[in-house]
């Protein structure tokens, strides 16, 4: 099959294609692993500190929770074998699967579950996932294979909340886990694949776990970091990859028409936003934020990078919580001018000024997300035409995590959020949310988010979150931009593929290769 490549076409693709060709030739000589592309390789592999989708996808291969999703997206036992709730539903006794071992051969026991809960709850750990165990008041090991979890309040279906990944207690000196602990680059789990190597080219090699309690079909996976999205599609077409996790809309037609490739819907409920640091200087003023929102032609931002939906709030349009009565804002420079003047700014020459200072945006985004850079440049051009200077800052992953996630030291950011099917925006919009980077605080929003979390009436929850949508659309803690249509692409060599709608690899043990 590889010999059929039209070399003239490959040569026309430029130097990158030559690398692809060499890889193809390499693939002819050796049994190829399942190779998939990520825009960027995971910075660390430790589920306590997962912040990105690429990290989550690796976690899904390497680690397991007590429960996981079955094909019908119901909670099914993974490391748990069975569970018995107490009569008052305030505790759950979980029997663990026996005979499970960590990738280093150590036996998995109840101590690991207790350790994981305690580590996630330990304030010194500063886990980005801590909120996932907030409902647990305590975890104790009754014996090696039994753990008792007690809850803050009665839980109707606690298994639904026990999907967080379990870590090996014996690999950590205490429950105060550090992000830069050696575990991050030498992780072990109980899952179907073992991290074999972090390679020099930022790829990660994973091998099938022969001791796994289930049975994976694929022997080896290779995560390849390929920042150039155009290059990703070519690598798949020329059979140097078996999968692309996310296909750019502009590549969809070519890939759909390629008989060696199949597309799979992969809707991660993602939306793009410009986030204001509402605790800092200029951006505290809601009038200025609204003015900026009125100066941006969002459709113009979207068009060069793909097709999708413009949004008016913090949900994708297909969300149960999307408020269809809140219209997508249209560019309105006259309204923006009135708002800025009301906020005390004056247009002097071609620059908005106040107290001798120009209106200037330091706009940060991740350096290795190609499409984000395109949007930043476009946004810069749009705002500069209206007298607002934009100073882009392209941050590496480490700097982003430090400045945005940890220190909240930024003016304005451009980024994306991907949500699982629960679309819980509490962490992004509640004043106590751990992903509320901009420090947004509105008691009306907080009250509704709190109430929505406790509600068991779907119509009430839907109505509450649609109200949140309407409120934040007025407050503009973020400028909500758009969603992008999202598909994964897979070589037809890969069989029995079923993609989890968020974690992607949840059912990868069923996949096989010709």
């Amino acid at each position, binding site marked *: 099959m590889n010999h059929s490549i039209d070399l003239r076409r490959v040569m026309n693709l430029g130097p990158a294609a030559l690398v692809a060709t060499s890889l193809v030739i390499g693939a002819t000589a050796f049994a190829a692993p399942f190779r998939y592309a990520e825009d960027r390789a995971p910075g660390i592999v430790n589920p306590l500190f997962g912040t*990105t989708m690429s990290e989550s996808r690796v976690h899904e291969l390497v680690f397991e929770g007590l429960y996981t999703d079955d094909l019908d*997206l119901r909670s099914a036992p993974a490391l748990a074998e069975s569970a018995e709730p107490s009569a008052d539903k305030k505790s759950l006794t979980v029997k663990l699967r026996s005979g499970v071992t960590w990738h280093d051969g150590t036996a998995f026991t109840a101590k690991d579950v207790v350790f994981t809960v305690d580590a996630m709850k330990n304030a010194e750990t500063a886990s980005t996932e801590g909120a996932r165990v907030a*409902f647990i008041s305590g975890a104790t090991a009754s014996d090696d294979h039994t753990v008792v979890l007690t809850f803050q309040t009665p839980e109707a279906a606690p298994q*639904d909340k026990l999907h967080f990944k379990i870590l090996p207690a014996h690999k950590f000196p205490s429950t105060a886990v550090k992000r830069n602990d050696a575990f991050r680059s030498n992780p072990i789990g109980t899952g179907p694949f073992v991290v074999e190597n972090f390679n020099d080219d930022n790829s990660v090699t994973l091998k099938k776990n022969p001791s796994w309690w289930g049975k994976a079909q694929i022997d080896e996976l290779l995560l390849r970091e390929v920042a150039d999205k155009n290059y990703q599609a070519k690598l798949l077409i020329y059979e140097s990859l078996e999968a692309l996790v996310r296909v750019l809309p502009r590549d969809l037609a070519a890939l759909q028409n390629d008989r060696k490739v199949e597309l799979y819907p992969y809707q991660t409920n*993602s939306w793009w936003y410009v986030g204001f640091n509402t605790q800092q200087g200029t951006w505290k003023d809601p009038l200025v934020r609204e003015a900026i929102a009125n100066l941006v032609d969002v459709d113009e931002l979207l068009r060069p990078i793909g097709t999708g939906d413009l949004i008016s709030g913090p949900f994708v349009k297909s969300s149960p919580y999307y408020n269809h009565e809140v219209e997508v804002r249209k560019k309105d420079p006259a309204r923006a001018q009135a708002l800025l003047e009301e906020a005390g700014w004056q247009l002097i020459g071609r620059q908005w000024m106040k107290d001798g200072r120009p209106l200037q945006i330091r706009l940060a985004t991740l350096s290795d997300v190609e499409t984000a850079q395109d949007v930043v440049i476009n946004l810069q051009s749009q705002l500069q035409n209206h007298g607002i200077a934009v100073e882009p800052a392209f941050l590496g992953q480490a700097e982003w995590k430090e400045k945005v996630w940890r220190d909240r030291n930024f003016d304005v950011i451009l980024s994306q959020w991907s949500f699982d099917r629960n679309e819980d925006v509490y962490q992004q919009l509640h004043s106590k949310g751990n992903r509320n980077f901009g420090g947004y605080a509105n008691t009306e929003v907080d009250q509704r988010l709190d109430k929505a979390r406790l509600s068991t*009436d779907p119509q*009430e929850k839907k109505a509450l979150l649609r109200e949140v949508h309407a409120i934040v659309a007025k407050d503009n803690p973020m400028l909500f931009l758009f969603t992008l249509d999202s598909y994964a692409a897979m070589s037809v060599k890969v069989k029995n*593929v*079923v993609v989890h*709608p968020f974690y992607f690899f949840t059912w990868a043990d069923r996949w096989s290769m010709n």
Partner: protein
Amino acid sequence: LPGLVALQACSGGTPPEESVAPSGWIGELVGHPERFQVLVEANREGWVAFHARDEAAAIAAFKRTGEAVGEARAELQVALFHEDLARVSGLVHTRLWRAQINRNGLPAGSRMADVGALAAWCGGSPTAFPEASAEVAQALAQAKGPEELDLALGKGFEAYKLAAKGDLAALEAQASRPFVTEASAERTREIYDPCAHAALARAWMVQAFGDKPWRSAADWGQAGLPGTFLAPWTDADALGKETLLASAAGELGAGGADYPELGVVLSPQADEGQGAREETRGLDSTLGEWRVALNEVATDDGKDLLSNLGLIGRFRQEWLMARARKALREGQPRRAQAFLDLAHDVATPGVGPANSPSLYALLAEAEIRQGHTREALVHLQTLVEARPVATGIRETAADLAVLETIDRLGDSKEP
């Protein structure tokens, strides 16, 4: 009929070895573009609308010109669309109200059990909601259809009575607006009509076939191209066989009459996607050969027709939708999902020439039957943007999606 059954049994055989241009409507149009001219000159507006999936405009145009077969085919498309939606409606209403009553009980004065009973009754399961009021239970036991109901429930059943007389506008409006509005905590609960699409499907089938059965679609073949253009059957002969082989009008094309010609090798009938993907690959291989063969023999006009109208893509999508309906009826949603994912033209998303409204309704059904209600909303939202009549289903499915995840904790990540 025995011969046809034998033909179906043979469909698992070896695909044809030689690449030949198809002899059906695609081959006829591409090989004889002048016949396309004749077809559209008589009914340009109707066929343009039919191609664009604007069935309402197509029906109106065909009525004006007296193109009876074109009109009936457009009416069948609308009937199938509502039939597809009716199954989705039945699923989401019965699942939502059953789960909600089980979880939270039945609030005093709420009609949710009555609506649940109505939904189940429309879907053929009249005893699924014993919590329904005695008045509703008794009325449902006696009525043959919603047009016979005189219950004081929500907006009532007047729209059904009008629909039974052929006036469908009120019922179409009822499908997209709350049927029952009641107090819930500090807000109002909006409940949509669970039977509207089933009734609309029946009414549109009557529009399409009058008092004849759907198998009378076989007669369309006598009309020539108007009976086959853009259809999932290749020619009049195949249509005739399909009307004998298929189990429902929506499965015309999936009966098996064309399988050998299409190079389709049936996979084991398990509910998984891989078999469906292999079957579709067989189909695509043959369609690829058709494309090559047609381009070799076609005039420039013929080539333009082939590419500009997306004739092969249209046939493929209609055929795969018929296969998906069959799989859904046979209780194989994963298999159906694979057919539908492959049928979906993702490069041109949304309802239009490239994607049928029924495609999105079927995708939603396949997802919901797998427990993927949240994912079904993606398709229902696309549908509502083109067909607001589906608004009630989107809202009900949204409530169900919320309920299904109400005990979960959310996860969010950066890219």
